[in-house]
């Protein structure tokens, strides 16, 4: 027996479980506007503290303050609000559609809309996202047709992916949206490869990788960071820390590290932490990181601090593992409300116009759904052919598949 007594295993636990009073007391939220904005060519070691703070622009009074403010014209901010409202309306309709049995599965991004919507607007045509299943905002803010998204969700005869993929695992090269695999972490490192290819060819395009707090534990996350660091790949590596990975709180993936952003330090990658529920802050930080990549200064790691308000997916019920009121207690508020209040304060928006737009976007989404349903839903109406199932495994169908397709009689 050692003089120190027996060892014991440490297993981290979240602050609250069902029945507990939610407590985010240990989430330190600096006041908006208090974090410096360094030049993009700053040496990483000089901005280590940016991985431990939270960059915020919108304050409690709905004003944009500090060095990261003032970058977005009112018109663009208004567009941002509309994008987020559209994402939210889209999610709500598709959730209902799943409940009605029109598809097998759906995943919302409720509360996280600002991240993908604002990031998308900082990219240029030709750039490529490697998203997870919770970045529908990239497509919607990028102007991808809602009907095409719904056709994919319904796996109907007009599904651009011919029924092959699980709902929400979109692919849209034309809109800078890489095919989502569904296996966690695998695509983070592919984003680095895409960015390296652009550098090898002497192009000007950059890439963006996306990953959740939970999935940062995968080996591919670490592979992405070391490759990005070694080759100074023109890539923005985004971590969406929404506090939960299904039922597992972020402390399990984070371990003893103070933050997820701090993971960048060991790789010499500049790392920033940003208020993910603040559209203006997300946009400002995205622009900063994208400019670094574009100027050949290398990768940036960005952690978006946010909260997964809804269930993980339609297969999940969070009341089994976290306090019901936890999302109300989340100290960073709601991204739509915050940007709305800012725009009202600027005198370019009003409660009435907000209500009017909410109704407009609702009917836009509804009209898209009607159009999509004309092509069928998962269990009724038009569906992708059985023949299509055999196609696209290879560029040209090998003889064994030709035989199997014949055997299937299609």
């Amino acid at each position: 027996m050692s003089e120190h007594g027996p060892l014991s295993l440490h297993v981290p636990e979240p602050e609250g479980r069902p029945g507990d009073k939610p407590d985010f007391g240990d989430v330190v939220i600096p006041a908006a506007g208090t974090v410096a904005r360094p030049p993009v060519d700053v040496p990483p070691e000089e901005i280590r503290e940016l991985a431990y703070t939270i960059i915020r622009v919108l304050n409690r009074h709905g004003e944009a303050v500090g060095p990261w403010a003032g970058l977005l014209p009112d018109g663009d901010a208004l567009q941002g609000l509309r994008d987020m409202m559209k994402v939210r309306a889209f999610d709500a309709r598709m959730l209902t559609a799943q409940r009605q049995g029109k598809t097998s599965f759906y995943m919302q991004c409720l509360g996280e809309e600002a991240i993908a919507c604002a990031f998308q607007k900082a990219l240029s045509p030709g750039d490529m996202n490697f998203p997870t299943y919770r970045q529908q905002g990239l497509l919607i803010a990028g102007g991808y047709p809602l009907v095409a998204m719904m056709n994919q969700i319904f796996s109907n005869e007009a599904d651009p992916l011919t029924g092959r993929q699980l709902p929400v695992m979109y692919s849209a090269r034309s809109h800078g949206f890489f095919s989502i695999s569904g296996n966690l972490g695998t695509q983070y490192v592919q984003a680095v490869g895409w960015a390296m290819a652009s550098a090898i060819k002497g192009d000007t395009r950059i890439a963006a990788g996306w990953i959740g707090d939970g999935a940062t534990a995968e080996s591919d996350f670490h592979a992405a960071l070391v490759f990005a660091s070694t080759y100074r790949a023109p890539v923005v590596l985004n971590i969406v820390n929404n506090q939960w990975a299904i039922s597992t709180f972020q402390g399990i993936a984070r371990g003893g590290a103070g933050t997820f952003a701090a993971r960048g330090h060991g790789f010499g990658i500049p790392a920033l932490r940003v208020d993910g529920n603040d559209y203006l802050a997300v946009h400002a930080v995205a622009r900063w990181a994208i400019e670094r990549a574009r100027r050949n200064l290398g990768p940036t790691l960005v952690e978006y601090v946010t909260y997964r308000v809804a269930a993980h997916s339609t297969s999940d019920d969070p009341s089994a593992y976290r306090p019901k009121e936890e999302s109300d207690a989340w100290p960073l508020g709601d991204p739509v409300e915050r940007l709305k209040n800012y725009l009202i304060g600027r005198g370019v928006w009003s409660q009435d116009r907000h209500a009017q737009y909410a109704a407009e976007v609702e009917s836009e989404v509804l009209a898209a759904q009607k159009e999509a349903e004309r092509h069928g839903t998962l269990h009724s109406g038009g569906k992708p052919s059985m023949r299509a199932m055999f196609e696209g495994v290879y560029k040209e169908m090998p003889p064994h598949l030709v035989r199997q397709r014949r055997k299937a009689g299609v």
Partner: protein
Amino acid sequence: MARMSMIEAIRDAMTVAMTRDPGVVVFGEDVGYFGGVFRCTQGLQQKFGASRCFDTPISESGIVGTAIGMAAYGLRPCVEIQFADYVYPAYDQIVSEAARLRYRSNGDFTAPLTIRMPTGGGIFGGQTHSQSPEALFTHVAGLKTVVPSNPYDAKGLLIAAIEDDDPIIFLEPKRLYNGPFDGWHDRPVTPWSKHPLGEVPEGHFTVPLGKAIVRRPGAAVTVLAYGTMVHVAIAAAEATGIDAEVIDLRTLLPLDLETIEASVRRTGRCVVVHEATLTSGFGAELVALIQETCFYVLEAPIGRVAGWDTPYPHAQEWDYFPGPGRVGDALREAMAG
């Protein structure tokens, strides 16, 4: 005896194993507090404490790698991979490490661990929640591979797996978790409480690894199946009226060749079925073995029914799934041959 779903039987097996042996530890993604996305480990953390049942970071290589370290130390880890479709990041740990540890160290170190994972289709899970990767494990020297088809076997086989001194891949057909599924997807689902194999003994018992069982005796043709396809094969026999003998392999490796050979020698005909893709699937191994042992008694070519050689699609779930219609066709062909 108690009535149990397959989920309850699996949970009960772990409860029994953890109670008998303090070295049994259970972990994986969402396995601790929540009790697993299919609830197979529900209540285990409460009962045995967080150092014996806990949530892990989302890292399959980490889950299996740490389990190997623990197993070598002297524990008996029983870990969960959330879906078999997500085992690939752990493949190196399984193939290069767990499978070979005993051999390369000449028994100096061993890895007695069980890796559980939901497998198979039938739930509209698309390509990331439907795969059947058993052949990727049976091809590897040093692993044992188990696929139960009902609650009784699931409990007995899982206890046997945890108590076994070699690394075990334990594939749980997720479509069978709540009830038998015979592939007639338009018909109402029956729960395990209405099925005799939902009767599970309480406490400790084992179903020995490496022993197949005849699920439906018959004289006309032998059908080799495992997991969900056992129920599909029985349904196909009933639908076609062909007096098929359906053998549930239960363990793919070590394989119970004796039971298979005895049956094929009687029937002279054989059809092999699995959900996994056809090419280089476990069916190919079965067909080769029957050819080697029973060639002179065969009256027809051995048939194979399997998943098509494509990734598992979403919309075309029932075009893809080898249901009783396709198995029935193969039975008729075997009889005509």
